[in-house]
């Protein structure tokens, strides 16, 4: 019995190995196109070994083009522009490309073979999404239930993102969770510093990732994340900007304010920060600093129900009411909202009532 099993295993393995060897030899002679260079968006250059399909070559270089069928040419998702070196359009690609796409050199990544130097164009978003290994470098208490985490990048060592974008943080398996989960957090740090990011996280009672970050994550620990993602960003106009965000919704706004300072942006900006209690206010000093450093910036903390003993003399009540009371010429403004769905929906109503165009309201709902 044992002998039979052994013979079976040996025979099948050796046939497999023989065929594999044949293929390796054949590949060496037939499919060896030598080193080829791939120029991406005119800025990055890869040197790869020719012979493979563009899609798999890019995947090996950690550039992930979406593909559902795994490179068999049946889903048509892996479209990208190949400007030079792809050769004629293949019949396997024709069904997936319309006239405009053919004229602008769109090809299917899984069908184009790398046999010579290529020039390709990939949407910036796809190019930028990567996995990062980081080290937790600093944890600061902002309020009783919010902390700021500084993650220094280990591999790769720098990150490029648009202020307002978010990353997905990997929560490893730990005592209170038996599976790995990803949770999205907006980047809050100064975008000038590409070697690290900061996140502002508010403890969600019972939350898998926030509990991990608050109770288990220690300075010096290694964490993984991927990104950046998201369309929430400052427009390029000069319209006065109104930011409305409370709690950890401050993260992307803080990042945008850093960016405005770095780029010498002179547009008018007002930031309404909503909180229930005075003790929920944070980073007030930094905001005062922005007020003095930015051309025309005002920070308006609004406390819904200030504690008796705090002598709060700022704006009181719901943040939406404060906006309604104090915002001038709303019709010209652009609004940027970030926070819980409830707060965003309430703000949308008020802003529309004030006459802010719907196409001028941008938001990032934390769901």
């Amino acid at each position, binding site marked *: 019995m044992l002998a*039979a099993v052994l*013979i*079976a295993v040996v*025979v*099948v393995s050796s*046939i*497999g190995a023989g*065929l*594999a060897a*044949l*293929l390796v030899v*054949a*590949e060496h002679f*037939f*499919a060896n196109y030598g080193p080829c260079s791939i120029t991406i968006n005119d800025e990055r250059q890869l040197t790869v070994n020719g012979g493979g399909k563009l899609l798999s070559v890019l995947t090996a270089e950690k550039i992930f083009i979406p593909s559902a*069928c795994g*490179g*068999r*040419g*049946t*889903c048509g998702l892996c479209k990208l522009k190949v400007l030079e070196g792809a050769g*004629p359009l*293949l*019949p*396997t690609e*024709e*069904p997936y490309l319309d006239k405009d796409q053919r004229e602008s050199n769109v090809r299917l990544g899984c*069908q184009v*073979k790398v046999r010579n130097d290529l020039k390709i164009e990939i949407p910036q978003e796809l190019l930028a999404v990567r996995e990062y290994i980081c080290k937790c470098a600093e944890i600061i208490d902002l309020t009783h239930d919010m902390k700021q985490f500084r993650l220094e990048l280990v591999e790769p060592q720098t990150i490029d993102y648009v202020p307002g974008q978010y990353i997905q943080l990997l929560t490893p398996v730990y005592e209170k969770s038996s599976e790995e989960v990803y949770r999205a957090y907006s980047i809050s740090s100064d975008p000038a510093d590409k070697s690290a990011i900061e996140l502002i996280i508010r403890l969600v009672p019972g939350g898998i990732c926030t509990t991990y970050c608050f109770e288990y994550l220690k300075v010096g620990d290694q964490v993984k994340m991927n990104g950046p993602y998201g369309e929430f960003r400052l427009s390029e106009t000069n319209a006065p900007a109104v930011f409305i965000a409370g709690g950890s919704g401050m993260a992307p706004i803080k990042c945008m304010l850093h960016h405005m300072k770095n780029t010498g942006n002179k547009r008018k900006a007002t930031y309404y920060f909503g909180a229930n209690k005075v003790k929920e206010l944070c980073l007030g000093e930094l905001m005062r600093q922005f007020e003095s450093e930015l051309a025309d910036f005002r920070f308006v903390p609004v406390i819904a129900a200030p504690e008796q003993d705090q002598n709060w003399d700022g704006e009181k009540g719901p943040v939406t009411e404060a906006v309604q009371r104090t915002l001038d010429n709303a019709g010209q403004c652009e609004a940027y909202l970030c926070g819980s769905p409830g707060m965003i929906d309430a703000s949308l109503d008020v802003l529309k009532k004030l006459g802010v165009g719907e196409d001028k309201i941008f938001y990032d709902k934390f769901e």
Partner: protein
Amino acid sequence: MSLTSQMSYALVVFVSAVFTQNILLSNFLGMCPFIGVSREIKAAFGLGLAVIFVLTVTCLLNWLAYHYVLVPLGLHFFRFILFIIIIAAFVQFVEMAIDRFSPPLYQRLGVFLPLITVNCAILGACLFMIIRDYSFIVTIGYGLGSGIGWFLAIMAMAGIRQRLANERIPRGLQGPGITLIIAGLMALAFIGFAGVLQGS
């Protein structure tokens, strides 16, 4: 069986594989490329030719491997694994060779080869030929017939789909939905051939 009777049996199996036992329309094997690459006649033609070629040759290779390696060693049950390995290796090898030595042929036929590496019609035909206990000569007829049958089916489908391209199809049925319905109707039509020949 004498050689002549084997040859005439091979012819019967061939015709039956093309029509009555059409691997695509009676067994519904090889559906993925059938739906994916049947939008244009040109692409369907190339893929169909590639299937004919690969099906015929791999059936023969697998017949040899089965009868000269697996049967003597009593390892019939390994045929699934072995067949898949042989098909994949053969397709890879042919693709590389065509790509290197004949770019025009690669352009027309070679690009389709990787699409059918894991096509179940090919593995299916290889397994049927074992189950039905075909001889080597009959296997030639069967492999070629199955390939041509698949080719005819995808060509018919591509022709229909090209005509449908400009028709107004309800949104929920567009794409693969209407294609599967057409495939079902074609299968019904092919049932009409059943009884013409009893090939197996």
